[in-house]
């Protein structure tokens, strides 16, 4: 089966610094792949190459089996992207934001569908008609997650998706990601939250200094062992 996402010997050099070095991994349909690493490990950079925002210095990134550089717009059309800082317009309310960005994506959705997505991320009804400049970080994050859900794409790229969410919302989010994967979506999630990654991912890749230094996979019907990954993460970081 063609992987939905593939990094093949991906390297990236910026301003003379090696940001990514021979990174290779794949994520198949129905799979949640978590890229784990400390600050500056190259997690978000890897994610941005799949969107064509950064050009690889070496190797390739493929979306749906096609190299991203060959048709960036086609690659983006298959991806719902949740940036690290939930970036939506402060002068618009949640409905206006979602309608606008979905219009940009060429998706027509009803108000009821938007409400359903906002219900799914548990954004309070009273907040939905307030301008987002008055939103907390968590509320902005929930709205951005709703946008990613409403895009209804086969691939989701999530950059620190639980940042700003309270523990209950994090658990609900993890359940939601698992449900999306169960429905056949491919999820690539970058995070430094070891526990969260192990809760939700089928596979975890450990990035350090731009190199993929470890890979962990859940046994059939089980979750990835948090302690093992944490130990590897801490060991590598200490190294």
């Amino acid at each position, binding site marked *: 089966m063609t992987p939905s996402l593939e990094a093949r010997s991906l390297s990236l050099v910026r301003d003379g610094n090696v940001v990514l070095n021979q990174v290779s991994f794949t994520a198949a349909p129905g799979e949640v792949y978590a890229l784990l690493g400390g600050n500056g490990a190259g997690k978000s950079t890897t994610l*941005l190459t799949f*969107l064509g*925002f*950064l050009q690889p210095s070496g190797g390739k990134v493929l979306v749906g089996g096609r190299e991203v550089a060959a048709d960036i*717009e086609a690659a*983006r*059309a298959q*991806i*719902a*992207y949740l*940036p690290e*800082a939930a*970036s*939506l*317009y*402060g*002068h*618009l309310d949640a409905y206006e934001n979602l309608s*606008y*960005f*979905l*219009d*940009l*994506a*060429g998706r027509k959705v009803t108000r009821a569908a938007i409400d359903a997505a906002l219900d799914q991320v548990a954004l309070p009804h009273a907040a939905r008609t307030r301008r987002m400049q008055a939103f907390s970080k968590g509320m902005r994050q929930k709205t951005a997650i709703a*946008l990613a859900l409403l*895009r209804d794409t086969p691939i989701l790229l999530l950059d620190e998706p639980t940042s700003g969410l309270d523990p209950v919302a994090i658990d609900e989010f993890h359940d939601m990601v698992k449900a999306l994967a169960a429905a056949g979506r491919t999820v690539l999630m970058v995070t430094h939250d070891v526990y969260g990654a192990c809760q939700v991912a089928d596979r975890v890749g450990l990035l350090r200094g731009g190199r993929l230094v470890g890979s962990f996979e859940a046994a059939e019907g089980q979750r990835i062992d948090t302690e093992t990954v944490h130990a590897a993460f801490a060991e590598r970081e200490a190294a």
Partner: protein
Amino acid sequence: MNTVLLIAREEWRLWARSRVVLVAALIVAVLLAVTSAITAARVGDEAAKRTARQASAEATFFAQPDRHPHRMVHYGHYAFRSPPPLAAFDPGVDAVTGQSIFLEGHRQNTAMFADTRSGADLGGFAALNPANLYQLLLPLLLIIIGHGMVLRERESGTLAVMLAQGQSGLAIAGGKALALAGVAALFLLPVAGLAGFSVAAGEAPLAAAILVAGYALYLGVWVALVLAVSLLVRQRSVALGLLVFAWLLIALIVPRLAINAGSAAVDAPGKIESDLVMLAQQRALGDGHNAADPAFDALQKQVLEQYEAASIEELPINWRGVVAGYSEAKLTDLMNGYAEARMQKEAQQSRIVTLFGLVSPTLAVGASSRTLAGTDLATHHRFLRESEALRFDFVQGLNDLHAKALTYADDAARSADPEAEARTRVNADAWRLLETFRFVPDPATQRVARAGLPLALMLIWLAALGGVIAVGARRLRP
């Protein structure tokens, strides 16, 4: 909905909800409306006054009593340059070139300014007009509103979200360009309104339409410049600084440099300077008031031969009138030579300034605006030529009367003999030889043709900036 329109609409919604943008736009709109109304009223009043004064001057000339024709030569007449309808938008050179000329024999007077009835205008505020505001203030408004169009998205992270929705950089740049062009179009309404009023007042629709199109082009250049900087620069503060610096250069510094360059490249003597140079040549032509001046010996010989007369007393025409006409023709040739040389040099200077439009679109739009409004230097030069032709015609008409309606004997004796003096008075009906003078701008097609160069310069700007935007948009990344 088309995504370009969608992005533009979102930008308009942001601006509509932004107090800073609304206040800035409101200030400019009020200033524009007030200045347009005041300038239109002022120019309309000026046009009416000058037309009335022209008619009054003609009536006064016609109402002169029976008298010696040469006294009428020195009594003189006035020519007024009435402002054309589009001067209500762009008064052009009107404020600096003079608007009326006293026409008399043996002289080409300098154009002068109408009397100021009130000292209230003398502070310089009357110089503010709609054209100035469009040329100087509107670009600043576009900079304030638009400098962060793309940078705001980049800095807040929404650019990544937009691109991630599958939008290309070109679509985003197109939407932003359309949004700012929409603001520019909104602010074109006052000039379009004034152009409409000018058409109602008799202006050619073609000239009015091209004038509005010229300002649309000019604001389009600024829209493109603002967008290009917003696309290519990484920080809003840097973009704002760069654009304000560009405005200073384009709207204020380069025009000043262009004027200096034009003056330095072509040395055009002023009227007083060339009049002083001309004096020596003028003396050599002889004194037209003195028929015995040796400068007219050759003429006398030729006229005597022509009429087969032995002396000037035997001539069937008045020798004094012949000398006056001959002298005026020679003197006018001399004065016209200097005037034409001076006007050509001024035109060369003006052309150099217009060519600086390649560096400053403000200069280009100023040149096209004045030309199309009929308030440019070329139009003023035509006024000088036409008023000079009027002067020459009526002076020579009077000299012809002097030669044909009066006898030499009466003319020579009129100082000592009251009866001879009475016979040298010509019936006042003869003053009707003065032609009525109504100055009108060149036909619209001529003005449009003259405005072609500055309009083309703005098109070059727009094409170049369009290329820069296309490259920047293709490379647009969060």
